[in-house]
């Protein structure tokens, strides 16, 4: 019998850290080396646009303390940036010239915020890591003027957090409404209305032409495509992120909107896995269609899935994943949850949830429940969303009229 292989994980974020810990839970006895470019213990990113902006001295949202990792026999190296993968030798090369041999390799490199491709676009900050959040927070004194470019999740959460700090906030979105791709229109419109009621100057259907610094005493002057300008003390771009695939691409691994993996997170090289924001995988829920998700639970689940495949030495190509995509966002006291991947063009059934919350549900033509999204106070949204997510996972074909009726207790549908 050969010894258990050494597993090297590249990227100590949500997916990489979970994979390293899950390897032990899955019974892997070989070495685990977690290589992370950042100088910190692994931490959660969702608080970066929420508590890490709102609080003056936010708690560091550690996923695992150094002691937890060491206790599980995970060797975490901070400030260790991988610059190349040598698949023939079974090694990765580090920026400092070191080389680390692997038996199995897990790529968990995450995604890189997109930069604005306009004159002066480099003056807009982006929000991806703990250092970014600290830098942005330092500029957000009460009364400071923040201009957010892009009304996606991170931009809208940052806008809500900056309002909580007493800043004046404008949000510029080139599309006709916020969150066009991810969120059903009725919920996105409710969110937009709430931002406006909170005093956010949310402008949709307008692009940004350029950003100038230190002009006429203004720290930043943002020229919009309708010919108007806006002054600001800080500009942050939240216009999405691209998967970090350069290492995988240079090593000749298959790329398809992210590092392409099978349902067990295995790349085109059976010794190399990819997980989290950098990976695209086939989803059984969508009949095997390949998707790349940027979500916290996705990162965790893929880390755990890769760990099981490695610890169990699973052979062959795995079937599409039976995971149900799940995402949440917090803005003011509103909690948004999405299960499945809602299709904005297909019809929804609406279920009122109490406390002003609503849920929208979507079924496939064959009656299979496909997706749901709900918005409102956490207490009004969470239980029903969890039950509906379970129904989606079970491929249930519930009576949609019954789902829409608030008198129907959803928990009964689980039995």
């Amino acid at each position: 019998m050969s010894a258990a292989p050494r597993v090297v994980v590249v990227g100590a974020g949500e997916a990489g850290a979970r994979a390293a810990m899950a390897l032990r839970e899955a019974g892997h006895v070989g070495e685990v080396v977690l290589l992370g470019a950042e100088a910190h213990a692994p931490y959660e990113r969702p608080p970066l646009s929420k508590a890490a902006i709102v609080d003056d001295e936010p708690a560091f949202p550690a996923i695992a303390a150094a002691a937890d990792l060491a206790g599980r026999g995970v060797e975490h190296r901070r400030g260790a940036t991988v610059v190349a993968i040598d698949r023939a030798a079974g090694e990765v090369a580090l920026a400092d010239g070191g080389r680390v041999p692997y038996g199995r390799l897990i790529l968990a490199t995450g995604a890189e915020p997109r930069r604005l491709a306009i004159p002066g676009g480099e003056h807009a900050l982006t929000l991806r890591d703990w250092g970014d959040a600290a830098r942005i927070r330092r500029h957000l004194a009460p009364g400071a003027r923040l201009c957010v470019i892009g009304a996606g999740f991170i931009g809208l959460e940052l806008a809500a957090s900056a309002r909580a700090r007493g800043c004046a906030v404008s949000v510029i979105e080139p599309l006709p409404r916020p969150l066009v791709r991810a969120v059903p229109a009725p919920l996105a419109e409710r969110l937009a209305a709430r931002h406006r009621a909170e005093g956010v100057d949310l402008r949709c259907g307008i692009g940004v032409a350029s950003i100038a610094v230190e002009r006429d005493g203004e720290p930043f002057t943002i020229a919009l495509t309708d010919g108007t300008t806006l002054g600001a003390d800080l500009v942050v771009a939240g216009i999405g992120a691209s998967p970090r695939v350069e290492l995988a691409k240079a090593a000749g691994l298959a790329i398809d909107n992210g590092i392409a993996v099978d349902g067990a997170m295995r790349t085109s090289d059976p010794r190399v896995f990819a997980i989290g924001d950098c990976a695209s995988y086939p989803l059984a829920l969508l009949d095997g269609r390949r998707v790349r998700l940027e979500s916290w639970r996705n990162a965790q689940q893929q880390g755990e899935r890769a760990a099981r495949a490695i610890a169990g030495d699973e052979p062959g190509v795995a079937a599409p994943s039976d995971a149900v995509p799940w995402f949440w966002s917090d803005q003011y006291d509103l909690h948004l949850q999405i299960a499945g991947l809602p299709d904005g063009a297909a019809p929804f059934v609406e279920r009122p949830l109490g406390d002003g919350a609503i849920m929208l549900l979507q079924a496939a033509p064959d009656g299979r429940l496909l997706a749901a999204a709900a918005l409102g106070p956490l207490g009004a949204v969470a239980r029903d969303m969890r039950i509906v997510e379970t129904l989606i996972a079970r491929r249930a074909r519930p009576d949609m009229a019954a789902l829409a009726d608030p008198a129907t207790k959803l928990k009964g549908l689980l039995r």
Partner: protein
Amino acid sequence: MAGNWVDACAAGDIDQEDVIRFDHSGRTFAIYRSPDDSYFATDGLCTHEQVHLADGLVMDEIIECPKHNGRFDYRTGAAKGAPVCVDLKTYPVKVEGGRVMIDLG
């Protein structure tokens, strides 16, 4: 030592396989009724981000946090995996004369 038993609610106030929130002297607790009709009590806030567990879903012996679905065994308080890693504190419970009493120690 004599306990510090507090009357929390009527036994019938909690549905089977469900949970309610109970606030007492500035603290918050969660009180559970299991599918086989036993009662349990834990601290009321999730150990991940301080959210009220009573808004979560009870399934068998598990309470799932409403926010990120962290799971605890409400009988022992044991955290059952990511993202929760710190156990919940539990409290002794007894049912007397149709009232649920919890011992806050």
